[in-house]
C-alpha cells in the first residue's frame, strides 16, 4: 500500500506539469492585456508598452514559462500583477472560506443524501421514493444561484434568521462562522445531494437484490441492520467514488456560490483574476485546484480498502 501511495503521488507530477503547460499556454493565447487594464483610458500607447515591459509581459513565451516553472519548483508562485501581493498570500487569505464552504457542504450533502438514497431504495416505487427522486431532479435542474437567491430572500430578508452575505472566520467563533455558511452550503449542496442520493439509491437497489441480503433477512436480521450494515457497506464503493468526482462539481459551484453570498474564497479570486487577466494568480489557483482534485481522488482510492477488504494495493 505504501508503494502504491508513493506511485500515485509521483504520478501527480506529470499531471501537474501538463496542467501547468496547458494553463500557461491557454492564458498566453487568450485575448486580454493586463497592461491595458492597468493603464486605463488616460494612458498613452507608450505608457501601456512601458507597463507591459515593467511586468515582463513583452518577453517570449518560453522564457516566461521557464521562469514561472522554475519559480514554482522553488515554492514561489509569483506576485499578482495588480495587487503586488504574493500569490501564496492571496491564496492563504482565501483558502479558509472555500475550505469551510466545501467541508460543510460535503458534511451536509452526505448526511442528507445517503439516508435519502437508502430510504428511496428501501421504499422503491412508493411516494417516498418518488419524492426523493423528484427532489433529485429538482436539485440537478435548478441552478445554484437561483437556489441561493431564494434562500437569501426567505431566510435572510423575510425571516431575518441568517445574514444575506459575508464570511466570518472560524477563529471568531463557531456560531458566527456557521451562521454565514448555512445558506451557501444548502445552496451549493443541492446539486451534490441530488447526485449522491441518486447514486446511493441505484447502488442500494442492486445490492438489495443480492443473495446475501436475502440470507440476512432469512437469518432474522432487522431492517436497519440489513440496510445500513449489510447493504450500505457493500454499496459504499460507488458512492464514495461519486463523492470524490463531485469535488470538481463543488469547486465549480463554489465560484457561483461565493459570488452570490459574497464569500471571499478561491472561487471569487479565480473569477476576479480571469476578468483582469492577472496571470500569476490564475495560474496559481488553477494549479492548486488540480492538485487538490488529484489528491482527493487518491484519498478516495485509499478509502476503498476501508469499505471493501478485498481491494488491495
Amino acid at each position, binding site marked *: 500500500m505504501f508503494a502504491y501511495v508513493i506511485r500515485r503521488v509521483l504520478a501527480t507530477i506529470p499531471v501537474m506539469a501538463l496542467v501547468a503547460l496547458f494553463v500557461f499556454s491557454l492564458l498566453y493565447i487568450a485575448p486580454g492585456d493586463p497592461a491595458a487594464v492597468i493603464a486605463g483610458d488616460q494612458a498613452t500607447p507608450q505608457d501601456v508598452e512601458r507597463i507591459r515591459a515593467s511586468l515582463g509581459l513583452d518577453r517570449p513565451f518560453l522564457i516566461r514559462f521557464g521562469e514561472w516553472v522554475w519559480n514554482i519548483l522553488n515554492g514561489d508562485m509569483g506576485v499578482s500583477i*495588480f495587487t503586488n501581493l504574493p500569490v501564496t498570500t492571496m491564496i492563504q487569505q482565501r483558502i479558509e472560506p472555500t475550505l469551510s464552504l466545501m467541508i460543510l457542504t460535503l458534511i451536509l450533502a452526505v448526511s442528507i443524501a445517503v439516508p435519502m438514497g437508502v430510504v428511496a431504495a428501501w421504499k422503491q416505487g412508493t411516494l417516498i421514493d418518488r419524492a426523493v427522486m423528484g427532489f433529485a431532479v429538482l436539485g440537478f435542474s435548478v441552478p445554484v444561484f437561483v437556489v441561493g437567491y431564494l434562500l437569501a430572500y426567505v431566510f435572510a430578508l423575510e425571516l431575518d434568521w441568517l445574514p444575506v452575505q459575508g464570511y466570518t472566520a472560524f477563529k471568531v467563533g463557531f456560531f458566527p462562522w456557521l451562521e454565514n455558511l448555512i445558506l451557501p452550503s444548502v445552496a451549493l449542496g443541492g446539486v451534490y445531494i441530488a447526485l449522491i442520493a441518486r447514486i446511493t439509491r441505484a447502488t442500494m437497489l442492486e445490492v438489495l437484490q443480492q443473495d446475501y441480503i436475502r440470507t440476512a433477512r432469512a437469518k432474522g436480521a432487522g431492517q436497519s441492520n440489513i440496510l445500513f450494515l449489510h447493504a450500505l457497506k457493500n454499496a459504499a464503493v460507488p458512492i464514495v467514488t461519486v463523492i470524490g468526482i463531485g469535488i470538481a462539481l463543488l469547486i465549480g459551484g463554489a465560484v457561483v456560490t461565493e459570488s452570490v453570498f459574497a464569500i471571499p474564497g478561491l472561487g471569487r479570486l479565480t473569477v476576479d483574476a480571469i476578468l483582469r487577466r492577472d496571470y500569476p494568480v490564475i495560474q496559481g489557483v488553477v494549479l492548486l485546484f488540480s492538485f487538490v482534485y488529484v489528491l482527493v481522488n487518491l484519498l478516495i482510492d485509499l478509502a476503498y480498502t476501508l469499505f471493501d477488504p478485498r481491494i488491495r494495493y
Partner: protein
Amino acid sequence: MRRRTLLQASPALLASPGLAAAQSSARTLRFVPQGNLANIDPIWTTTVIARNHALMVYDTLFGLGQDFKPRPQMAAAHEVSDDGLTHRIALRADLRFHDGERVTARDCIASIARWSKRDVLGHRLSALLQEMRATAGDRFEIILKQPWPGLVWALGKPSANLCAIMPEWVAKTDAFQQITDYTGSGPFRFVAKEWVPGSIAVYERHGAYVPRDEPADFLAGGKQVHFDRVEWRIMPDPATAAAALQNNEIDWWETPLADLLPVLRKHKEITVAVVNTAGALGMLRFNHLHPPFDDPAIRRALFPAIDQTSFMQAALGEDAALWQVPAGAFTPGTPLANEAGLEALTSPRDLAAAKRALRAAGYDGRKVVLLVPTDFPLINGLAEVAADTLRRIGFNVDAQSMDWGTLVQRRAKKEAPEQGGWNIFCTTWEGLDVSVPGSHQPLRGNGGDGWFGWSASPKREALRDAWFAAPDPTTEKQIARELQSLVWEEAPFVPLGLLRPPMAYRRSLTGVLTGGPALFWNVRRG
C-alpha cells in the same frame, strides 16, 4: 425567531463581546464600492476605484469645491508672480503623514514630479516646467517656461491621476512601478494588513489629521471624519448587495443596478440619490484609422440618427433624473458646457436624412465591427442601442460581444478590423475628466499618439493649447464653444448623454457630499 436568537442563543454569545461589537459597528461605515480595489497606487493606475481610494488616503494641495473651482487644501497660501511664471505655494503648518512625520515641501515636489510622469495634465506640467524647488521646509515654487493659469486646477483635479501627496521616499518610486508603502496624508489611514483584494479594504480615521477650519465643500474645505473605521466590502453580485443593504448588513452601495432601483426606493430605510452630480459622459468612439470611419462625412452621417434619450434609457432606465440630455462635448452643468452646434443632436431625429447622408458619403456596405462589453451592464446598454441605430441607417454591423478585459486590449489594436482591429466602441468618461479640454482625451486630435480611435486634428490640438494659456474664464468658454463646433464638423466621437447613476444608502446616514464620487468625510450616522 429572529436572527439574533437563532444561533446566538448561547449565554456566552450574549455576553459583553456582543455589546462591544454593536458599539464598534456604530462607528464603522460599511460601503460597497463599484468594483474590486485591486491596486492602490493612484499614479500607477488610472482606475476610478484606485482614485476613490486615493481620495481617502491622500490629501491634495488644492481641492475642487461644489462649483468645480479649485481652492487651497493642503496649501495654506498660493501666489503667482506678475509674469505668471512662478507659482509659490506655502503648506499648512499642521499637516502630518500617517506615520506622524510632517509634510514638507520636498514631499510635495517629489509627489508632483511622479504624478507629472503619468497624468495627462501632468505631462503638460512636464513640458512647461523650468524648475520646482523648496524655498523653506513648508514652501516651494513651481517655475514655468510659459504661463499656465490652469496649473492649480490640474494639481487639484479629482479625476485620475490624482496628484496625491505622498512622503518623498514613497513618491520617488518609478511612476511605472507600484508603490509598496501606503503611508498617506489624507483623513483616513489604509489598514494594509486587513486588505483582502476582492473582498475587503479597511480604512481607519487618521487621528493626527487636522481638517481645514471650514465647512466641507466637495473636495475642498474641512474634511471632518465622523467614523473610526470605513470598510469597503466588495460584492460582485448586485442582487446580493441590494439584499445586504435592505437587511442592514451594509450602509452604502455605490452603484446599484438600474433594475433594482424600484425595490430599493420602496424600502423605507433606504435613500436612493444622485451623489455624483458630475456623472459620466456616454460616448460612441470611432476608429479613425480604417474605413469607413476614416471619412468624416460617414462619421457625421450618424448625427441625425442619434437619439440620446434612447441611449440613456438603455443604460439607466426611464427615470430622467438619472441622466441628462442633450449633452454636448463637455459635461453638462460644468462651466464649459455650451450650446454651440448642439442642434446636431437636438433637432428632430431623422433616420431618412442619416441614410441619405450615408449614401452620399459613399459607404460601400463593408462590415463595421462594434465592440460590446457584456460584463458592463451600463456600457452594454449603450452598445446595444448603437448597434440598432447603425443597422437602421444601413450599416452592416458586426457586434462582437466580449468582456471588458478583452475590449481594452482589442481597442488598442491599430490593425484593420478584419485583422483583429475594430471600428466602434461605446464607453463612458468621468464627467470631471471631460469637463475641460485639458483632460478631455476623446476631444484630442493628436492622432496615433492619442486615445484609442486615434483622431487627428491640428485645429483641436491648437485650441487645446490655447485653452491651457487662456487668461480668463471668458476666453476658456469661447475656446470650448469652438471645440464643440469642431466636434460636429470632424466627429471624433458622438456624445450620448450624461449618466448620473444614483447611489443607495441607509437613511440613517446624513451629510453625504454630492458632486463626485462617494466621499467619507462629513458623513455621519444619525
